[in-house]
């Protein structure tokens, strides 16, 4: 069995155990589902967006769900496993190459992000009859899962205490949620803000999610996300190699 797969398998077993607890799934999808209903009912009839606001919002919320679950699952599980339960020691001491350990952890975080993203988009599809995802959107959502899981790995290995995680959530994740074009188009934002947020990973994901057809610009955005993801994966493996208690 390949080393990365053993690590991935380990994470999936642990995830399966947690998924059995009702609170785990609910707490993971509750926040995006509340936003879905609140914004649909509150703004749905007021915003003029080609294709309709609810499909626009559902895709934005899909991006948020994938980001939150991929990032938080990985950062929390890695940081807690490193600082409190010391379960990360087992992975560090195993003969599996550390790049594969990093790969397995990222893949598991991405899987969780995609699964819960699927649940939330499924709810939107069932209740609001939002359309399915095209190739560009699927590419965006998969890359989002990988990027944010890899970011979670780096952050989980970097933080010195749990408070540092909320720092990243407050200063990086939350601004991306509200400024990254998830809930409403950013066209009314000041120009310099638009230019700044255009390069945020969640903005790239959102633009891929909403592309009607695959085009050259999409390829660039996808390539950007892929490069970011690989960079984060490499950084994660590097942090694992420098692991010292």
């Amino acid at each position, binding site marked *: *069995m390949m080393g990365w797969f*053993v*690590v991935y*398998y*380990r994470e999936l*077993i*642990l995830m399966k*155990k*947690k998924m059995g607890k009702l609170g785990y799934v609910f707490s993971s999808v509750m926040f995006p589902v509340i936003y879905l209903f609140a914004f649909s009912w509150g703004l749905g009839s007021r915003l003029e967006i080609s294709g309709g606001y609810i499909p626009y919002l559902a895709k934005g919320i899909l991006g948020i769900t994938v980001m939150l679950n991929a990032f938080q699952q990985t950062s929390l599980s890695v940081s807690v496993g490193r600082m409190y*339960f*010391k*379960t990360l*020691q*087992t*992975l*560090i*001491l*195993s*003969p*599996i*190459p550390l790049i594969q350990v990093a790969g397995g952890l990222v893949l598991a975080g991405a899987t969780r992000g995609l699964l819960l993203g699927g649940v939330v988009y499924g709810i939107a599809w069932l209740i609001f009859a939002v359309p399915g995802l095209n190739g560009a959107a699927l590419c965006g959502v998969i890359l989002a899962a990988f990027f944010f899981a890899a970011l979670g790995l780096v952050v989980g290995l970097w933080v010195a205490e749990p408070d540092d995680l909320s720092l990243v959530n407050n200063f990086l994740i939350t601004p991306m949620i509200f400024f990254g074009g998830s809930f409403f188009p950013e066209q009314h934002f000041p120009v310099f803000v638009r230019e700044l947020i255009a390069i945020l990973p969640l903005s790239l994901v959102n633009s891929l999610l909403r592309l009607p057809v695959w085009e050259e610009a999409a390829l660039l955005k996808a390539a950007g996300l892929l490069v970011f993801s690989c960079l984060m994966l490499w950084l994660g493996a590097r942090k694992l190699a*420098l*692991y*010292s*208690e």
Partner: protein
Amino acid sequence: MSSLSVSHTTLAMDLVPNPVLELKNISKIYQGRTVVDNLSLQIGAGEVFGLVGPNGAGKTTLMKIIAGLSQPCSGRLTIFNRDGLAERAQLKPLIGWVPQDNNLERELTVREALALYARLFAARPFQPRVQQIMTEFNLESIGERRIELLSGGMARRVLIARAILPEPKLLLLDEPTVGLDPDVRQDIWQLIRSLAAQGKTIFMTTHYMDEAEQLCDRLALLKAGSLLMTGTPAAMKSMAEGKPHSAVTLEAAFLRLIRRGAE
């Protein structure tokens, strides 16, 4: 200065022919504090070697350096004739690590946890090896019990079983019986004796002098990151009293040496 006196200058590292583990001038400074100070030590194949010392002496840090969980600031570490820092990947399957605290995945059952570690540590063939270890360590009756529900003694038993899964040659035990009742301690001692009888080299830390005396062939006495002495338990007692055949207990000898080392 008497040849039996304990001091940083006279102190001597026992030289072992063909050591399997050799630390040379290992130092570790953590958050501005010297945790391990220029420490040198050799351990021979098949030895049960004990590291004793008061709290904060640097025992666990030294253990983690050997395990590969902590990087020393300077010095050389040689394990099975390989560079313990540069060739860590090749050494990983040869070293078993039993931490002081239970770091098993709490959500898993004992059987699931061992099966998972067998895969992580490539202990082949997986299922027969897991079954063999469960039988050997008498874990079958608790195989379906979740880790979080295990008693301290049972968890320690599973931790040792996990470390043994890939059949390491060097076993590192950090305080293997801390917090356990006397009955369970005896049980763990028996386990350690049987592993030593299989020819494994065992490097352990302990706070219990009776444990050190019962299990260890040789001891190293550590204080504030420095090595005060190495020798057999009998040699440690002799050194404490300054005569060859001493009637003091190892605990009394330990206290004398620690206090003398502080002077």
